[in-house]
């Protein structure tokens, strides 16, 4: 539906951050994991599992998650459900209790849900001091299951070097955290420890794993209110806080002016005046187009002799480069005049046919104007003049047939030459060719013979079709291989 440019009413949004691209995904995932954990409405079975000497609280198996996703999100293929589940894990909403790598497996592996406190939608950007405190704290805990992995030990060593001066402070903070943790209930601690670890697995991922916190820099600007960003899990922030390069201040929203509304009104009036087609007609047209071209679509109708990418044989391209057009290619010229004009061999055939009828000036004019629009700016004035002389001036060599209204308009345009000087004239000539020259071309022996493969293009010695060899400024027949356009 048409909407005016800079639609004033869309300037105000409730919370700009909620509409940021990342947040949209987070909210969708949050909806999914909330539903998954809701046992009243068919959520996954979250249980405490007895293992060896202890209990594993609050876990669910990978296959239960996969089953739930397939059932509740209408996913037919388990592979797709595993992929989606792995992404939800990678974003930090669910995690394997015994692995740093955040991925989902369709088996008995145990997973736990992340605490809302640690959800990415809280705009976490934890700093390295925080991470240092975390790793330091881990080394203070005497449990085998909490030993640092190799990459974590390396990270810790690097951080110790980087923060050498304030390591005492970090150590103290880590000790304080250990004290706080000790006061908590044993089961609660197991859960919280794992959630905290999963949080760091998102923000300091295992080397080789995708860092899902990376952002598309084009979207960063509008992303965050610096005040909302959370930088520390442990309530500690780095002293010197350089403004993060991604947090550029966003421009203040421009107030809508009367002029904006006037422009919108003009635009809307133009849209109301527009003659539109009914959906049924549009649908028929789209269907007709695809049906006509489906035989040319290599994804649907295998290419002959073969698709080079599949067979590793470039024969198809070699055939197309040769100037002998296939029947299929010639048939395509009959779909619309644009198809003939688009294909260099088709264009060549069309022009030759018109030359044989001594009526090629229209097509040559059209081609000349196309060429004009492709020229560098500095060449435009000269070309405009040349086209005028060749095709439109009184007594022009290749005079084209324009109605008086178009002719007058064009002569006015020529006084202020530009790339679009001949736009009006070109449109008229295009319509003329479509209804006249093009229709005759399709009926011609030249075209029909090619279509029915009765004749090859280059079997005998080259024939001169151009009536004025070398004297037209826009094309010359080289008598050998093809028509060349300057």
């Amino acid at each position, binding site marked *: 539906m048409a909407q005016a440019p800079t639609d004033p009413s869309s300037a105000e949004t409730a919370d700009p951050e909620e509409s940021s691209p990342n947040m949209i995904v987070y909210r969708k995932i949050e909806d999914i994991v909330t539903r998954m954990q809701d046992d009243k409405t068919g959520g996954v079975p979250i249980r405490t599992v007895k293992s060896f000497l202890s209990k594993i609280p609050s876990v669910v198996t990978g296959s239960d998650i996969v089953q739930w996703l397939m059932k509740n999100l209408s996913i037919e293929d388990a592979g797709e459900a595993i992929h989606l589940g792995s992404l939800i894990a990678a974003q930090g909403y669910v995690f394997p209790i015994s692995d740093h790598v955040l991925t989902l497996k369709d088996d008995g592996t145990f997973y736990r849900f992340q605490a809302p406190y640690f959800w990415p939608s809280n705009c976490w950007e934890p700093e390295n001091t925080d991470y240092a405190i975390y790793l330091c704290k881990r080394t203070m805990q005497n449990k085998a299951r909490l030993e640092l992995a190799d990459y974590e030990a390396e990270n810790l060593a690097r951080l110790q070097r980087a923060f050498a001066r304030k390591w005492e402070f970090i150590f103290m903070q880590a000790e304080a955290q250990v004290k706080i943790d000790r006061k908590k209930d044993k089961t609660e601690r197991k859960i919280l420890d794992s959630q905290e670890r999963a949080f760091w697995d998102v923000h300091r991922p295992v080397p080789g794993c995708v860092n899902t916190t990376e952002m598309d820099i084009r979207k960063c600007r509008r992303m965050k209110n610096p005040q909302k960003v959370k930088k520390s899990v442990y309530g500690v922030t780095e002293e010197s806080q350089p403004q993060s390069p991604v947090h550029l201040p966003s421009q203040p929203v421009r107030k809508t002016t009367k002029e904006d509304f006037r422009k919108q009104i003009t635009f809307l009036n133009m849209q109301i005046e527009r003659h539109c087609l009914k959906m049924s007609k549009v649908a*028929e047209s789209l269907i007709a187009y695809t049906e006509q071209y489906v035989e040319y679509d290599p994804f649907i109708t295998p290419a002959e002799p073969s698709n080079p990418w599949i067979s590793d044989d470039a024969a198809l391209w070699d055939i197309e480069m040769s100037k002998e057009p296939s029947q299929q290619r010639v048939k395509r010229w009959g779909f619309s005049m644009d198809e003939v004009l688009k294909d260099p061999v088709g264009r060549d055939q069309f022009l030759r046919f018109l030359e044989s009828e001594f009526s090629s000036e229209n097509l040559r004019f059209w081609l000349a104007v196309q060429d004009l629009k492709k020229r560098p700016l500095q060449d435009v004035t000269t070309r405009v003049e040349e086209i005028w002389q060749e095709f439109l001036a009184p007594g022009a060599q290749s005079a084209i047939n324009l109605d008086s209204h178009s002719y007058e308009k064009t002569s006015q345009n020529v006084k202020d030459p530009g790339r679009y000087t001949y736009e009006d004239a070109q449109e008229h000539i295009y319509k003329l060719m479509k209804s006249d020259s093009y229709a005759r071309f399709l009926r011609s022996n030249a075209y029909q013979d090619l279509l029915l493969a009765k004749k090859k293009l280059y079997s005998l010695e080259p024939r001169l079709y151009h009536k004025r060899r070398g004297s037209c400024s826009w094309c010359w027949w080289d008598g050998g291989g093809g028509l060349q356009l300057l």
Partner: protein
Amino acid sequence: MDQTFLAIVFGPCDKCSKEKPLRPVSVKSEQRSYCSLCVEMMATEGLHENETLASLKSEAESLKGKLEEERAKLHDVELHQVAERVEALGQFVMKTRRTLKGHGNKVLCMDWCKDKRRIVSSSQDGKVIVWDSFTTNKEHAVTMPCTWVMACAYAPSGCAIACGGLDNKCSVYPLTFEKNENMAAKKKSVAMHTNYLSACSFTNSDMQILTASGDGTCALWDVESGQLLQSFHGHGADVLCLDLAPSETGNTFVSGGCDKKAMVWDMRSGQCVQSFETHDSDINSVRYYPSGDAFASGSDDATCRLYDLRADREVAIYSKESIIFGASSVDFSLSGRLLFAGYNDYTINVWDVLKGSRVSILFGHENRVSTLRVSPDGTAFCSGSWDHTLRIWA
């Protein structure tokens, strides 16, 4: 286009009461009949003085309502309903046929050469590489002075490439095959924006480039002189993508932006001729249907949509409950029957454009798919990803 002829009404002018040929005119959303002299006077005199912000706003609102009414009258059927009679597509076997490795960081953009096998790709690390993707050989490489090269394009002649990104510029590099070539030496700065360059495309010639930018505008440039030929204002936020209409005679292009709008522009006048706003989030990619009568869009709202220009409305939505990540890049197969879309969930979904259903899901990339283009002859498509690689699928 059929011609309608206006019947000439003769009578007393609603403004000056003189008996004259009358023309219909809209004054404060009401239909009036003015003589041509009064129409002219109305246009030039400060009738506007009596218009307040509120009255203009309400006029705009009522026009919007009228427009919706008019469009609704034409909405007699859905595309997928009419398409029920179309034969269903068979099973597809699409695989990665080539993997191009060589970028050191996220691949952000790619474009095909008209020769159907060469491509240019650009990356976050500032590198722009030209490959013969059939052999997977790298043929040229240049390092840009900035990181995040978000846009790149191949010239129609195959003799040059254009690229840009955080430098706010679009630069053109001629491709040479001389030994010891220093591509950077022959670089030509063409476009200058006031924010990042998000997309660029040559028009039908090596001599003009169309650009889109984070500064909210699009622009057309003369490559030789670097002169701005036309600028396009209207988006209310960053413009993220653009695509030129495929017609031989057309002078239009479509752009999509962070304002959730897709806008169609007249390249001659710089005016927006049509505008569509149905997405719920940024439009990352727009691409014309091969006939030029419609275009598809991919958005952060996890949907792709088809808009028809003749109906002036959205005619199809391609979405699934299980697809929750944004679509970053879309392109059609040659006949327009298939829509390939790359997503931020690392997958590529293939949609049946007419029926609206998903035909296939392709796994392979290990991070977001950021760019996707079908080759010029439709024999394959190429996808680029944040996993540093490009893949050719067929």
